[in-house]
């Protein structure tokens, strides 16, 4: 078993699906000759040719729009946003055209829009965003956000095979930081809509996703030394949320801390808290807490970025307070 990075896992997943299904093609800025800004699609042009690995103009609306049109015709496009921040240019395409096509016209739009999200890399305000909340309330879309190499591979493959449009948020801070041994020869498919218990625990549940899974696991490790047993639930899919898994962990530990890297107001934590209120209020032994980014644009300066984004110690502090409640 070879150890591969999160980035290599995405690459392998894409590669395998391109090999498996001729309807799958890749389009985006610099994805072909250059191999992708982060080299996710390095070598694809040589293997699959210009007809399936397509360098586009810097035209995010047309990239997503053309992908949607091709998907309406039965193809399986994977559109890359060079940085996921740029997806805002395609907001009209995704929310008005793509998300509603099945409802208004009975028309499938099996596209994947993927791109690097997230901070911790000093990317500044336009290269560090987490756009999930902007799409989370749009019926007709799915959103996935892998934390592990296994899920990075399993979710890109599942997203490509899915008959609905999927936004695939890959965290750039995890690209080369996370490594994992994946068995060769095994087909890895992560089911969309299913969370994963990343760590078992008894006293408190942390529900989280993306890079925050790792911060939360570090926090859980520290709390363990204090005798606080923390369960960490990695959502993996943000839309649709795995309500059953969230409710199950709350019923088990009776305390819920939600951690996300996205800003606080209107972030996913609010929706998750509301659902627990509706579905498992009686099971709570404390207030639902959240650790999130501050409600500001992401600043460049390292000291400022580190302050704005949730850090392991922020999670530890909140969890310790909640555990003692």
């Amino acid at each position: 078993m070879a150890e591969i990075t999160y980035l290599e896992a995405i690459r392998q997943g894409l590669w395998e699906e391109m090999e498996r299904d001729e309807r799958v093609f890749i389009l985006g800025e610099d994805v072909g000759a250059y191999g992708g800004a982060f080299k996710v699609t390095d070598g694809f042009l040589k293997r699959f040719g210009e007809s399936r690995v397509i360098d586009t103009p810097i035209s995010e609306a047309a990239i997503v729009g053309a992908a949607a049109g091709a998907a309406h015709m039965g193809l399986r496009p994977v559109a890359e946003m060079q940085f996921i921040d740029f997806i805002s240019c395609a907001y009209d395409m995704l929310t008005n055209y793509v998300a509603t096509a099945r409802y208004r016209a009975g028309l499938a739009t099996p596209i994947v829009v993927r791109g690097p999200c997230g901070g911790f890399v000093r990317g500044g305000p336009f290269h560090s965003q987490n756009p999930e909340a902007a799409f989370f309330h749009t019926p007709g879309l799915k959103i996935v956000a892998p934390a592990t190499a296994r899920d990075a591979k399993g979710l890109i493959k599942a997203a490509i095979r899915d008959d609905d449009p999927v936004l695939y948020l890959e965290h750039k801070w995890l690209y080369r930081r996370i490594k994992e041994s994946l068995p060769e020869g095994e087909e890895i498919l992560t089911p969309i809509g299913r969370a994963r218990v990343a760590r078992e625990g008894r006293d408190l549940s942390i529900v989280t996703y993306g890079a925050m899974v790792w911060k939360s696991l570090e926090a859980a490790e520290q709390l363990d030394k204090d005798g606080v047993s923390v369960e960490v639930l990695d959502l993996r899919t943000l839309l649709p949320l795995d309500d059953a898994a969230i409710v199950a962990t709350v019923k088990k530990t009776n305390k819920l801390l939600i951690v996300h890297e996205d800003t606080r107001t209107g972030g996913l934590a609010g929706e998750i808290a509301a659902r627990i209120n509706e579905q498992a209020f009686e099971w709570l032994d404390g207030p639902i807490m959240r650790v999130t980014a501050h409600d500001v644009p992401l600043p460049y300066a390292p000291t400022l970025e580190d302050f704005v984004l949730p850090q392991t110690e922020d999670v530890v502090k909140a969890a310790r307070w909640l555990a003692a409640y």
Partner: protein
Amino acid sequence: MATATAPASKDQSQAELHRRMLRQMLLIRRFEEKAAEAYALGKIGGFCHLYIGQEAVAVGSLNALRDDDYVICSYREHGQALVRGIPATAVMAELFGKATGCSRGKGGSMHLFDAGKRFMGGHGIVGGHIPLAAGLGFAIKYRDGDQLCLCYFGEAAVNIGAFHEALNMASVWKLPVIFCCENNRYGMGTAFERVAAVTDVVEHACSYDLAAELVNGMDALAVYEATTRAVDRARKGGHPTLLEVRTYRFMGHSMSDPLHGVYRTKEEVEEQRQRDPITQMAHKLIGDGVLDQAGVDALDAEVRAEVEAAVQFADQSPDPEPGALLTDVLAE
């Protein structure tokens, strides 16, 4: 077709084409008049944009296509839907919000759809669908097909970025797409020259190295011929074309808007009505001896009956089941 055809039979097929085009234009006109009536009666709700005055554009251009070509439209698309062969019953039922509508009552006037007719939708946001046309063309090319995609939009759509992104992309990738701009001179209540630095839409083709043609949109045959040339270019190597078809709508922007008075004069509308594309086409057919006035009247009676039947069908059709509300959001 370059095959040798006896002059008589060529004339005959021409006559048949022209007769069909007149019938289609009449069908749109009568359909839209009934839709206006039904709107006034409250049977059609929301926003309803009529095609009266622009009939020559849809009829002229769509007759140049094959059945296996693709069509994608903006929100003023009742005419295209009817010419493409979606039954008047299914279109009217959609306007009435009925389960038997071509979009099962979930789309409405601006979102007619029929994949079987390769009618890939009306779309209710100005210009946003133009990139989808590039994608339809891309998929045709990906599969080495010889079909093409005909994409309609109004002149106001050229001010949105999606138009420029899509034209550039279609040209760079040599996609078999015809971009058909129906220039009716007003984006709702704003004259094009008040909001566009370049008022000859066809000039935008230069920026993207597209073939281009300026067409008289009140003459169905001129539209037919220009589209036929664009079709040839698209099929032979996928060279996209921008057609600017100058037309005029005789009605307000939508049913809730005034016909004139605010942004255009009554005199202007009256003057344009003298160029009515249906009258022109009927005169031509009578002049060519294809039909006499009685023949024109008979066609008109035929389409009036068809539209009346469509209204009855829509009236009598069931509303969508409440259960349909939650279906087709996602695949499962």
